[in-house]
């Protein structure tokens, strides 16, 4: 389904470009631009307290409590002011890039673009919110999320770069950890990974324990609630990469609505934005397979008997489908996704779309359908007994080395050249220094997250509780930590 309504990207892009144009105009008006007599500046509007999300007044409705200020450059004698200016230019540039590429980023992604400049995560958090307020738009309209918005459920063990471990309780959905904080993930108990477009379906599948009690074996379920942010894509990319020859990543499937947005969301995970920018290489998951909803799933029974759960395409849907057929590289004739091309054409022929809830009407519901599909797609486990036998056989074969784990991709973690090797052990002062910086950033991030959470909706509070609960690992987590240390 489409994302919630938000201002068109072009409007926000225009605001950012207007800021840079004003700066350029000021420089051009100088007789000698190399030595300007007057400072250039960026105008800002703010309140003493940042307004909560969602109820952001427009510039035309400036309240009496609003303050206006200018951040100037070079601001001789005031180096902090010059630094602020540089920070703003850098953030605006990154926002501009995210909007033009239609990529959702988190504040943490922005921080790691230039940690030497920003110094702390709090800096980025603060100025992103001020920019949003100045422009009179929500943070979401800037294509920024406060944190990774992805949720994950399943059996896996996560080792953080700071040395701590998190044993994820399989029953409870967790916020996706920022991949910058991850050193390794143990997914030896995972037979499949399912990417779900919608949060509601994700929660239904998680609460039905699909990932633990499925006839297809244990799995992981992941959602980014629509179009994915970069952190969730990074997390999935990490799961899909195998750095050792003897470790085969589990298959990754996508469950989307049968509509142009569903295909566009899956395409973002698998191939990146329509413009295959350089960054996509480290985010794409080329092995994703489309589980459904495809025309044969949503329509086979409706086309013959009834008319349940089908919707008409809107004009916007039709335009989006035609745009995708025209502009997406992978949907070209002869491209990588010819079957997706066909499905878009069938949508247009029928003028029909279907939401994944259409499966709920079937015997076995969505969970039953997913299980059947997982089994069809090559997962050979048919019963718990088979699962046990396979597990025991694996134990015997592997001997003492039971755990399979994925180590974080170094290139993937190193956003800038200055960041030292995080995976090195006992490297010395540089490593210790990096650890301290990371820990500090992590703490600030947590505080910032809490602050942002409190005025949020009930759902946000719920997520916060879940997140905090996950952080306070039980004793079992500690023992696992010890085991990991021993192995190291």
């Amino acid at each position: 389904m489409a994302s919630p309504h938000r201002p068109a990207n072009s409007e926000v892009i225009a605001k950012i470009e207007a800021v840079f144009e004003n700066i350029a105009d000021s420089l051009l008006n100088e007789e000698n631009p190399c030595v300007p007599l007057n400072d250039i500046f960026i105008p800002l509007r703010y309140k003493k307290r940042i307004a909560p999300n969602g109820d952001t007044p427009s510039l035309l409705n400036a309240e009496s409590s609003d303050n206006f200020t200018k951040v100037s450059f070079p601001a001789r004698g005031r180096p902090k002011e010059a630094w602020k200016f540089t920070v703003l230019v850098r953030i605006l540039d990154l926002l501009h890039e995210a909007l033009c590429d239609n990529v959702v980023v988190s504040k943490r992604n922005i921080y790691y673009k230039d940690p030497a400049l920003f110094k702390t995560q709090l800096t980025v958090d603060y100025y992103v919110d001020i920019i949003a307020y100045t422009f009179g738009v929500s943070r979401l309209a800037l294509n920024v999320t406060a944190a990774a918005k992805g949720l994950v459920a399943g059996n896996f063990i996560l080792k953080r770069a700071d040395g701590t471990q998190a044993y994820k309780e399989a029953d409870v959905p967790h916020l996706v950890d920022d991949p910058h904080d991850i050193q390794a993930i143990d997914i030896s108990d995972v037979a499949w990974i399912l990417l779900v477009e919608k949060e509601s379906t994700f929660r239904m599948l998680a609460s039905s324990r699909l990932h633990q009690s499925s006839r297809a074996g244990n799995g992981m379920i992941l959602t980014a609630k629509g179009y994915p942010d970069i952190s969730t894509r990074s997390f999935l990319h990490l799961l899909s990469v195998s750095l050792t020859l003897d470790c085969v990543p589990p298959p990754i499937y996508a469950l989307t609505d049968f509509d142009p947005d569903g295909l566009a969301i899956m395409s973002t995970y698998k191939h990146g934005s329509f413009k295959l920018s350089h960054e996509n290489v480290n985010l794409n998951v080329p092995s994703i397979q489309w589980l459904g909803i495809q025309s044969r799933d949503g329509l086979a029974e409706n086309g013959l008997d009834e008319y349940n759960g089908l919707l008409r395409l809107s004009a916007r849907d039709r335009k989006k489908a035609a745009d995708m057929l025209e502009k997406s590289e992978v949907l070209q004739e002869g491209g990588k996704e010819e079957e997706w091309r066909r499905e878009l054409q069938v949508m247009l022929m029928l003028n029909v779309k279907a939401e994944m809830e259409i499966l709920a009407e079937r015997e076995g519901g969505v969970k039953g359908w997913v299980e059947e599909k997982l089994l069809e797609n090559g997962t050979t486990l048919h019963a718990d007994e088979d699962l046990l036998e396979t597990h025991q056989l694996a134990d015997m074969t592997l001997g003492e080395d039971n755990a399979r784990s994925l180590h974080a991709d170094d290139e993937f973690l190193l956003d800038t050249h200055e960041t030292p090797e995080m995976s090195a052990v006992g490297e010395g002062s540089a490593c210790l220094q990096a650890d301290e910086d990371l820990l500090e950033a992590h703490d600030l991030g947590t505080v910032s997250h809490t602050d942002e959470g409190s005025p949020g909706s009930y759902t946000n509070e719920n997520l916060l509780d879940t997140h905090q609960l996950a952080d306070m690992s039980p004793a079992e987590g500690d023992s696992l930590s010890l085991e990991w240390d021993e192995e190291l």
Partner: protein
Amino acid sequence: MSKQYLTTHTIDHAHPTDIFSLSTTASQILSSSGSSSIQVHSTNQPDFPLFQTLDNAHKLGCHHTAISRNEQVAASVGFGGEIKIWAAQDDGRWGERTEIVDGNKAGEIWAIVLSEDGQYLAATSFDGRINVWDNLANGAKIREFETKGSFGMSIDLSVDGRFTASGHENGGIYIFNNDTGRLFHSLPSLVRPVRAVAFSPRGTLLAAAGDSRMIALYDVSSGDQVATLTGHRGWIFSLDWSDTGEYLLSGAFDGKAKVWSIEQRTCVATHTETEKTLWSVKWLPKVGKNEGFATAGANRSISFYREAAGG
């Protein structure tokens, strides 16, 4: 009394993806699909050889084609909404003549039909309008009919050119008088999307069908529904009348093609190659006394049937 049709030939893999539209002349069958090219096969030779490929006709794929009754003009529409007009050349090959864009938005133009001599092209649009262009006036639009704003999914022109019929997503079916430029009849609704409409050869009857899974027959002069043909279990995508008007051919979602006797109001033959969608079905010219038809759809092949001798 049932009729027997035999599968005489199948052009396997005629297209790399779903075939959405078939159009025929006395000696050729044109097929279009989700690929960018239109294929022309000869139907007057035993193995239906490929005669011509209209390369890169529609980048996003082509969903509708039409040929004038005089077989001199063809038209095709792509998923991007562009219309191409093709002219038959002396050697039987098709050459591109013009392209109609007409300020069209992406994908808004949908079903098309050509007048008997190919001068006029009528097309439906997503917002329910029927537009008419004059191909002899460099593709100028000469008329615009408006309906209630529901997606125009199907269209046909009577052989004498007097009437245009359109079927719409909300089940609406309209007949327009081309001489007066006015609505002639608003026919009883099928309630569900009307994916095919077809005038009988003498223009006395109009057949309409779609997601209701039944074929409604209307009297053109009075606008009354005179019959309902039932039996299809899936959505009906295509209708075609035989030259004499004795039989009606239909193709459906579940891969079944049916032949209906108009006199008896019953189905006299049902054929299935696969259970895959049939997007288009068309009668073929008679060979001797035996009638034949072609079907195409999601299995990407074109299948040919001919009535068994001595039926």
